[in-house]
């Protein structure tokens, strides 16, 4: 089980050929209180870098992009009811979607946890 990150602050935690996608702790802290989440339907084909979901804070709406290509196999309906979970537990119960990866090679273009930590230091 490995977690990868994008420069847009999404993460994908990969187990086998499936990845769980959400936003990083940095992303949730930058957004502030999440009040609404819009999720795709199960079965939707996502292309790497395309919009996978929308997350809205009190201030603004932001896109969540697919870190890799693949088909949506599950969505976290619980965060539609309690969007604050995205703030409280972004890497756990605050996940957005699960994707069945269509090209595991795309993971090589993402950052490892360590690289992401360095990236955060570089932008702060």
């Amino acid at each position, binding site marked *: 089980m490995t977690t990868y990150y994008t420069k*847009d*602050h999404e993460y994908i935690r990969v187990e086998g050929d499936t990845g769980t996608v959400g*936003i990083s702790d940095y*992303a949730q802290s*930058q*957004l*502030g*209180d999440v*009040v*609404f989440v*819009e999720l795709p339907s199960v079965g939707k084909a996502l292309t790497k870098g395309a919009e996978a979901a*929308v997350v*809205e*804070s*009190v*201030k*603004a*709406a*932001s896109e969540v992009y697919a870190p890799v290509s693949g088909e949506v196999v599950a969505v976290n309906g619980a965060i*539609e009811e309690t*969007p604050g979970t995205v*703030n409280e537990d972004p890497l756990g119960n605050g996940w957005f979607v699960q994707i069945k990866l269509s090209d595991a090679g795309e993971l090589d273009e993402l950052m490892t946890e360590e690289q992401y930590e360095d990236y955060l230091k570089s932008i702060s």
Partner: protein
Amino acid sequence: MASSPPGSAPLRHTPLHSRHVALGARMVPFAGYDMPVQYAKGIIAEHQHTRKAAGLFDVSHMGQAALAGPDHATVARALETLVPADILGLVPGQQRYSQLLNDQGGIIDDLMVTRPADGDGRLLLVVNAACKDADIRHIRHHLPDEVRLEVFDGRALLALQGPEAEAVLARHAPAAKSLAFMSAAAMTVAGIPCHVSRSGYTGEDGYEISVPGDRAGALWDLLMAEPEVEPIGLGARDSLRLEAGLCLYGHDINEETSPVEAALAWSIQRRRRQEGGFPGSHRIMEELADGPLRKRVGLLPEGRMPAREGTEIKDAAGELVGEVTSGGFGPTLGAPVAMGYVASDFAREGTALTLVVRGKEIPARVVPMPFVAHRYKR
């Protein structure tokens, strides 16, 4: 997760800037100032705190000024050539909300006008930060020789808002207790000379406190030391005013919108409606008589999806009838709220409309504002 590019001009600081930074506030550029959008607890917690206890806001970026002339009537009549409110009729210590209008009756800015309790021939003005330089030029350009505008660049402005605001301020300034809503007086707050008005931008009871810039830190520290008080950033200021149905300049009102369209006709008192004599009075009197072509209304979307500024408003037949000018999530309501302009045929309470958000049609209905009842101390 886009981040905004740094502005090119250096941002100005209020006298309380270092305190916001020390509190861990997230600072953002706003109207040329580096301002706190939220503190550590976040917008929703700050919003709720203001509704249940007392929130302290630094609004020193706003423009403070005074008109000064030989007597009240001269100064009031000078201002009445620029705004539609009854300024002449202000009694000492009374405050009124009004708008600077252009010749078409559009709103150049909205402002608070106070006739101080003492000192004849003066009016205190508070204008929006983003408009203040243009307002000053506009007002000066139109003043008669015997009335001058003094700009108080050195003063800070703090807002203390919420049901506990009175108890907190009265501890240090007993006179604050007897001020009624929309009245003002000079008073010392724990020995600091201030000008205090009972007003605000949250829908709650509360005060706005004008203080010399070099004493602002001491006043801030004094109020922050009170157990009921938490600092509140611009984020919650916006969600509070939205729930209170109050206009944000540049969004809900601008140079195109008239006060009648903006549902601010209540701020045009009877004498001015009869006499006119303010910019754009022709249009405004016509709108008062016949109704405006469009009107600012409150909108409650179904579900949880916020409908933000720029959202198209359609009628049942799918025709475009208006646009959202402010919208978001109302923490007190626990639901999205919005306001916007619709063609007058669709402004009636209960009208079913559709908001188009990211291609999705969200059912909404026209509701009276405020969304959260005002709790002013009248």
